């Protein structure tokens, strides 16, 4: 009889292990969105020392621009290319004409400005597209599930993980292998020396802001089939991105990636095992990290001093 119970036990373990893996994958997919949002936020903060409070509204804008492109041409892949370009350009216009005049005036001016900018974007979207929200289905080629051997996993979420990985590799190559990336890495440490060496930093800031905003817009589009498209869809994102950046360490790109995944996985597990704790869990994680590492997991000393 005993071997029978061991067999049952093993099967039980196996089932929970499959479930564990499934939750882990779900968490990584959820975290992928966090990573994209937090990367942009961190990139902007690391170079421009601006806490961009409008970030979550650019996220929402990305979803709307995506829905608009889809409504026009009905092609998700075109939206995937178009959204970061359009939203990124809007971001660059905002940097050039609204934020740039505030450089060198202390951290609170751009903070208030981006806060107001976020509200303006929200109201404009409400006026143009209505308050109700619009439907956004999973693109047909990405709906359904794939058999990963141990479990079936939604195709779209797998795509989310894949595209985030591609973007991360691309961003890494850009930062590590190009002259522009070299300037950005140096500028994050010491702006003045970069200027002394003949680089017009205002151009660099413009591009960095554009790239950060493009990432937020792309994240909004990618989240649309999961979260739906409505004017307030950015509201929780600001909180989530804030938690991720604090856990990862303000301004650290590597931290944004690790913390994004960590928060995604934490939320995924708690919403499965203790659903009522799901939202709270990320704050608990943040508190825990801050107790042991006040600057976050990969935060650099002195960034905010």
């Amino acid at each position, binding site marked *: 009889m005993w071997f029978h119970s061991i067999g049952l036990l093993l099967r039980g373990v196996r089932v929970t292990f499959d479930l564990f893996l499934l939750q882990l994958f779900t968490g990584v997919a959820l975290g992928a969105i966090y990573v994209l949002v937090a990367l942009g936020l961190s990139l902007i903060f690391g170079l421009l020392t601006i806490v961009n409070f409008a970030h979550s509204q650019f996220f929402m804008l990305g979803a709307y621009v995506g829905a608009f492109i889809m409504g026009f041409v009905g092609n998700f892949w075109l939206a995937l290319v178009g959204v970061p370009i359009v939203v990124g350009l809007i971001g660059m216009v905002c940097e050039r004409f609204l934020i740039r005049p505030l450089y060198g005036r202390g951290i609170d001016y751009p903070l208030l400005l981006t806060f107001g900018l976020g509200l303006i974007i929200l109201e404009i979207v409400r006026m143009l597209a209505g308050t109700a929200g619009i439907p956004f289905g999973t693109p047909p080629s990405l709906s359904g599930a794939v058999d990963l051997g141990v479990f079936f996993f939604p195709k779209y979420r797998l795509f989310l993980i894949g595209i985030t990985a591609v973007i991360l590799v691309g961003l890494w190559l850009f930062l590590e292998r190009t002259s522009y990336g070299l300037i950005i890495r140096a500028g994050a440490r010491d702006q003045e020396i970069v200027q002394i060496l003949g680089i*017009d930093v205002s151009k660099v800031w413009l591009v960095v802001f554009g790239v950060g905003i493009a990432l937020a817009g792309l994240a909004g589009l990618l989240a649309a089939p999961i979260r739906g498209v409505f004017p307030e869809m950015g509201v929780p994102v600001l909180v989530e991105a804030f938690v991720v950046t604090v856990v990862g360490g303000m301004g650290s790109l590597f931290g944004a990636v690790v913390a994004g995944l960590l928060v995604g996985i934490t939320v995924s597990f708690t919403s499965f095992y203790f659903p009522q704790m799901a939202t709270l869990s990320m704050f608990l994680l943040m508190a825990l990290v801050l107790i042991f590492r006040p600057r976050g997991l990969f935060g650099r000393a002195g960034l905010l001093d």
Partner: protein
Amino acid sequence: MLKIEQLNAWYGRSHILQGVNLKVEAGEVVCMIGRNGAGKTTTLRSVMGLVGRIDGQVLFDGHDISKEPVHRRFAYGLAYVPEERRIVPGLSVQENLRLGLVGSTNRTREAEMIDRIAETFPRLRERLSQSADTMSGGEQQMLAIARAMVSEPKLIMLDEPSEGIMPVLIDEMFELFNRMKADGITILLVEQNVERALSLADRAYIMDQGLIVHEDTAAALLADTEIQERYCAV
């Protein structure tokens, strides 16, 4: 090459430079000495465009650059090695050198320029892939100078390059300056190491409390211990 006329500079409300006049001819090595807080660094930073509020004229190579942004002054051929080395941590030696090229027209000849600079700075050649912040203070200073040199500037301003560096490396550094001088590179040097600086330079200025108080050939100043004592004794 460089001509400063009636230069005034402020930090907030304090009026630091109060009408500085100074010039550097092409091919000259000019040195600026004076006590701590005299305004030497402020002068160099004003020339580079790094001081918020200035007044007066800064002529460089025939252009009035006093209203130009920092990166344009670099484009005119002005290089500046700040007081606190400013090696970018996290970047390798080679990346720091590349950083000196990306804003310059020499960027298309990157490999050639880095080879050439590595010949002048043998210490750096062995450490190209090393992280720059793991080097000694003197090596970092050498790197800062090399980084300013790769763009082949017309004038290089050095702010207390020998500060906090061990004696062996100071010797090496002044040998390097002598070679630069022989190559016809124009240098504006700020130094606390008065004797060494005066032995190298053609002319010298003494600065005190935001003003140039004395100006002479370096040789004459080197002989004049009374003046040296009056303005440079700490």
